[in-house]
């Protein structure tokens, strides 16, 4: 009989601690492809850690050549290659067709493999590198070079609406994560042989393929060289996104203003290229970087170009008003109420004061609380899935807001201020710039609450001085307003009908060719060389 009073300790669960481990042993280099197949096979297995790596396929087979069996193997990654292409266009001809005579290398290239992109390399490491990017590599016994077969066939997102830069009028194509798909979108839109797409690899280990795009006869060479220099000098193991590259190559990381345009729209990239800018496209990223960027590029929406002038003028004016509201409205409100109530009309002041009678907090606390709550709702709305996100917005904005007002925790006027500010901030076309405004808004509120309009204007002075002082790839951020450029100021701020715009490209980009369009671009208006009135 068991002793009932005997203490038995519980079996302790095994605790796990990460223990230091050594770096994997370096694989001894093998420079060239060996003519002995077994050596190549052994090296490939070592490089790809086979059989540990479950997705790397090595298929060994025989080629019937001159009535002899020649051993061969092909290596590729499951999921990265199109298996139908490999089966039908690589393995089938190699295994089924039996050439009688000739050089095996020549026969394989000219007769057996019908792929459009086929190359051979004697450097085994270089040849195997492409396997991670959807290539299949073929090794044949007695042949001292590898055949690199382009058989990319991985799953990717199709071309869809650019989610963050949607327009009502204008193209609805957006970039996806495929480098060549994105470069093709740009090339087919621009349709000029002057368009250059220079390949560049980013990341020491990741070697992420990218392309620097520019128009040969337009873009300033020093600008292109500077972009290439900055990108190629990135000394990091892995770079996956163009947004990472943006942070690596921007000039002032601690200033809130963005120094590059990030876009998902091919038409926007094309327009920038025609102006003499440079674009950078990275594989795996649906955002293309355009440089240099100025404030007026970031404040302009893609749709401004497509709308008729009266409509786009209205939108622009509304946007400037929205920028003012998004940036300064809460700060000015705090300043006026705390320090300069005499400036407001008596009726307005009475209305505001009576609405705040039972609110226990000061203007500053109330504003900060509401702004933080609004930012929380906004952030949560983005992170949670679609239908729940919108519900969250409604619950957060309407129900909690209403409850807070009824509980006298906040005044109705504050709800209006924060809501107007929030709505206004959504009208800023550049996501990065709107972030900059969201960040700066808090500084304006603090300035307004601390020292009234003096505080607000001090923050504004420092903020704008930073914007004026910062440069994006040698171009001042506030160009061409300050320093003065060759662009008409009214056109710059309020736009102009497409035929009435300047005949020259912006001179701050120092393009090779200044000419953009004819002064009279509507030739149909001319009769016998004269403008018909």
């Amino acid at each position: 009989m068991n002793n009932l009073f005997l203490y038995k300790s519980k079996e302790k669960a095994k605790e796990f601690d990460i223990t230091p481990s050594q770096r994997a042993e370096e694989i001894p280099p093998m420079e060239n492809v060996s003519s002995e197949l077994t050596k190549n096979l052994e090296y490939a297995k070592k490089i790809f850690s086979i059989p540990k790596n479950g997705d790397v396929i090595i298929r060994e087979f025989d080629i019937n050549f001159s009535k002899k069996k020649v051993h061969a193997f092909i290596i590729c990654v499951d999921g990265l290659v199109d298996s139908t292409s490999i089966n039908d266009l690589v393995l089938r001809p190699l295994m089924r067709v039996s050439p009688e005579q000739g050089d095996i290398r020549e026969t394989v290239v000219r007769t057996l493999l019908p792929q459009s992109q086929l190359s051979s390399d004697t450097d085994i490491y270089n040849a195997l590198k492409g396997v991670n990017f959807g290539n299949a590599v073929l090794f044949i016994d007695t042949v001292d070079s590898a055949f690199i077969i382009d058989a990319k066939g991985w799953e990717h997102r199709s071309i869809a609406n650019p989610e963050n830069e949607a327009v009502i009028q204008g193209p609805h194509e957006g970039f996806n994560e495929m480098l060549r798909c994105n470069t093709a979108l740009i090339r087919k839109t621009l349709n000029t042989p002057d368009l250059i797409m220079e390949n560049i690899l980013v990341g020491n280990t990741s070697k992420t393929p990218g392309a620097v795009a520019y128009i040969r006869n337009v873009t300033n060479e020093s600008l292109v060289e500077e972009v290439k220099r900055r990108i190629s000098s990135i000394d990091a193991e892995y770079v996956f996104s163009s947004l990472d590259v943006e942070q690596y190559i921007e000039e002032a990381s601690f200033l809130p203003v963005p120094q590059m345009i990030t876009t998902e729209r091919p038409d926007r990239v094309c327009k920038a290229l025609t102006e003499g800018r440079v674009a950078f496209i990275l594989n795996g990223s649906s955002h293309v970087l355009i440089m240099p960027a100025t404030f007026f590029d970031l404040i302009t929406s893609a749709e401004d170009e497509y709308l008729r002038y009266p409509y786009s003028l209205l939108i622009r004016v509304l946007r400037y008003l929205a920028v003012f509201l998004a940036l300064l409205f809460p700060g000015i409100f705090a300043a006026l109420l705390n320090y300069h109530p005499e400036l407001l009309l008596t009726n307005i002041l009475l209305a505001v004061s009576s609405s705040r009678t039972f609110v226990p907090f000061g203007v500053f606390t109330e504003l900060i609380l509401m702004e933080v709550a609004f930012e929380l709702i906004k952030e949560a709305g983005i992170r949670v899935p679609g239908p729940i996100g919108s519900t969250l917005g409604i619950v957060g904005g309407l129900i909690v807001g209403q409850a807070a007002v009824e509980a006298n925790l906040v005044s109705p006027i504050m709800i209006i201020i924060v809501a107007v500010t929030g709505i206004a901030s959504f009208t800023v076309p550049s996501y990065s710039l709107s972030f900059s405004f969201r960040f700066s808004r808090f500084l304006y509120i603090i300035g307004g609450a601390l020292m009234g309009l003096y505080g607000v204007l001090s923050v504004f002075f420092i903020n704008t001085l930073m914007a004026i002082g910062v440069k994006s790839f040698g171009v001042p951020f506030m160009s061409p307003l300050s320093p003065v450029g060759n662009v008409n100021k009214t056109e710059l701020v309020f736009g102009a009908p497409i035929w009435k715009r300047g005949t020259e490209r912006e001179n701050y980009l120092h393009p090779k060719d200044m000419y953009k369009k004819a002064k009279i671009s509507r030739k149909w208006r001319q009769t016998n060389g004269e403008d018909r009135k």
Partner: protein
Amino acid sequence: MEKTGNKETASLFIILVISHVIISGMAGFVQNSGTAAFINVLCSALLTLALVLFCSGAFAGRGITEVVCKCYGKRAGGIIIFLFFALTVLNASSRMGVFADVLKKYVLSETPKTLILAVMGLCVFSAAYFGIEAVTRYSLALFAGFAVIFAVILLCAYPETEYINLCPVFGKGNFLNVFSMLYVFSDFVYIYLISKNIRRSVKKVAITSVTVSALISTVAVLFYTLCVPYPVSGEFEYPIYRLASLSNSAVVFQRLDGLVYILWFFSAFISAGALGYFAVSLFAEMFGLADRRAITSAVIVLIFLLSGIDMAEAVNTLMSVFAFLFVPFTVVIFRRKVK
């Protein structure tokens, strides 16, 4: 010295003069000359223009150290450069001090002066840090806005004008007063001497900036004289504020003070910021420092500490003497030595 365009430099000069004249200097003109204050402004501007044209081209392409050492020898030159630096620091400090005093008196009566000065110091630091290139660009970007605000203030004050307030046309009749208020234009002459880059295009810039600033200042003083009768007009320390509070716009905002704040604060930030930058540059030049930004904070702290001392009158007199006596004297000596 960074590159600055003609338009940008002219805007900076205009704002420097305007910040002096219409913010506080206007009261001085009215106190000195009574109803003839606007004639006084015009005469001061003409004198400045004549002086700058006389000096133009004198030190072309030469730095301040080179000019001073050539004229007065190495040892005396070194002392003079130090005096320039001290004068620039004192000028910037006095600007900040006057600004803080008036702001505290009229707008932020409950706020400690030190806090006002600290915020101003931050603005001056930013200006000095980003350099004269950014400051001049800023001046140009704001210039149109300033002009609109100025026009709105004058238009709103227009119903209050009475032409009888102009009499007697020659005010106190003492034309020697022209010389007592020259200091409002002294920054222009001073910066001309110390800034090699600005001097390069001085003729064009000088004519534009003196003409425009003279026009704006004369109109402002004339309007003030028309709206506020003498001797009451001499009582206000801050005339443009008085001018703005005369109007009753009654659309959302009851008064136009907010517009004056924009004009006032920004012109003060720009002028003190530009002086702060020149103080830092002079210090860097004195000791041959390549990295100007490294000493910016130290010089701005010095300016901030000195701004608590009331020395506006002494600095204004020193600036007038320096700008209108020392500079032409140096020009004459330099021309002789070069010959």
